[in-house]
């Protein structure tokens, strides 16, 4: 990535502003995910309803950043690294907004839960899933901030762990479901939450793939699918 300044200082400033907006959005999204998963673990419905309320902020930022990028393309005609950067930002912002949506979903499920997840046998698996997911999200945002392609590959590995954790959790839940049909609604809700957490990991992985694209020009999306 070219770190040298453009001749036009205004152009530099515009690119920098977009970058900082993305980081702000990332911070917001991270906070919301942290809060939503905390609420899930603790059964804190008050926290959960707060989180749900503030998702609009994330959406507003997405629209704003998209607008800025359109403007940048129209007015600056970015090329090479600058073009990949802008292209990636548009994509990253979409994924970030999705993560925000998933956090909102988790939060709304928490408000509907009748039992504490602590009482569930899957609690520990859930807790470990959440820990991994938080790690992934944090690493992905860090990866973008520093445009570090190496870190991207590590995140991909972490996501694999998350996926297998999720599969384990699914199996355990289904086993208990068969035994304890009474609490089926809660189990399903928790299932959806777990699914959301797994989705968050996927989105975070996408973000890292875009970072690789920006840094090296390689589009590594979907390559692993083909290999399989």
């Amino acid at each position: 990535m070219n770190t040298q300044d453009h001749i036009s200082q205004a152009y530099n400033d515009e690119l920098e502003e977009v970058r900082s907006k993305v980081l702000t959005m990332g911070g917001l999204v991270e906070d919301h995910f942290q809060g939503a998963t905390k609420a899930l673990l603790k059964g804190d419905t008050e926290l959960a309803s707060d989180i749900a309320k503030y998702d609009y902020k994330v959406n507003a930022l997405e629209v704003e950043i998209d607008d800025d990028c359109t403007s940048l393309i129209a007015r600056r005609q970015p090329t090479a690294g600058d073009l990949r950067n802008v292209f990636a930002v548009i994509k990253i912002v979409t994924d970030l907004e999705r993560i925000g949506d998933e956090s909102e979903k988790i939060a709304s499920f928490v408000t509907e839960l009748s039992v504490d997840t602590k009482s569930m046998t899957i609690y520990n698996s859930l807790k470990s899933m959440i820990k991994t997911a938080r790690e992934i999200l944090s690493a992905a945002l860090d990866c973008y901030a520093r445009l570090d392609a190496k870190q991207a590959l590590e995140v991909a590995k972490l996501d694999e762990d998350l996926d297998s954790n999720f599969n384990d959790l699914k199996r355990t839940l289904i086993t208990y479901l068969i035994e304890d049909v009474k609490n089926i609604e809660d189990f399903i809700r928790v299932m959806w939450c777990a699914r959301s957490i797994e989705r968050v990991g996927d989105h975070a992985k996408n973000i890292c793939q875009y970072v690789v694209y920006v840094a090296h020009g390689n589009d590594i999306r979907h390559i692993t699918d083909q290999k399989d």
Partner: protein
Amino acid sequence: MSNQDELELLQELGETVGTPKLKEKVRMSCNHVDVFYNETAQAIFDVSVDLGKNQILAMIGPSGCGKSTLLRCLNRMNDTIDGCIVNGEITLDDEDIYNKTIDPVLLRANVGMVFQKPNPFPKSIYDNVAYGPRLHGLTKNASELDDLVEESLTKAGLWKETKDRLNKPGTGLSGGQQQRLCIARTIAVKPEVILMDEPTSALDPIATATIEELMYDLKSFYTIAVVTHSMQQAARISDRTAYFHLGRLVEVNNTDDVFTNPEHKLTENYITGRFG
């Protein structure tokens, strides 16, 4: 879109679309301006547009659409062309510049012009910049003149490169430097408005970028109108963009809006590169 459709759209156009007139902070204003090159050849049809203070207005449009003609009316350079008739009103700070009492020579000291091909005088760099101030007697003594020359060259981003060779000929500089010298020469007379007629079309990309950056800096001191063939340049540097087509002003809006969502179809066609 065929030529015929284009012409029809043009004829249907009543008033200029967008915001040709500003409500406040207007430096120069054109009101219902018509320009004829002789009795029969009309180049500009009923154009009204404002130049905002400390703003850059870019004028774009296909060849022969009248943008250069209008620009040259703003400092009465068209007076030098035989048979050129200008109707309508053009004002600078609310004063009609075509009034009989206005001296075009004085006007041109107030409204400077930079041309397409860099044209420094065949004199030294110092004398190039000092010519205008000497002509109008802007400074009282030699040291004031020295300061003025230094100030102008600094504002034009040329001081560091020339301070050690002020008495070398201006024609010995590179293309981009010559154009910056012409800009320094223009601002030495302390104008209020600077008109630029395709200032970078004869320069390479780096020189062009340097001049564009310079224009961005000059914006805080002067009001600037630029005619350019390059839409991308208009997109990069201007605050407002005016699109001309066959002598008519089709649309004027903030540059951001013009390039992301133009109001008129003809503007969109030109910007996206679609022509009949």
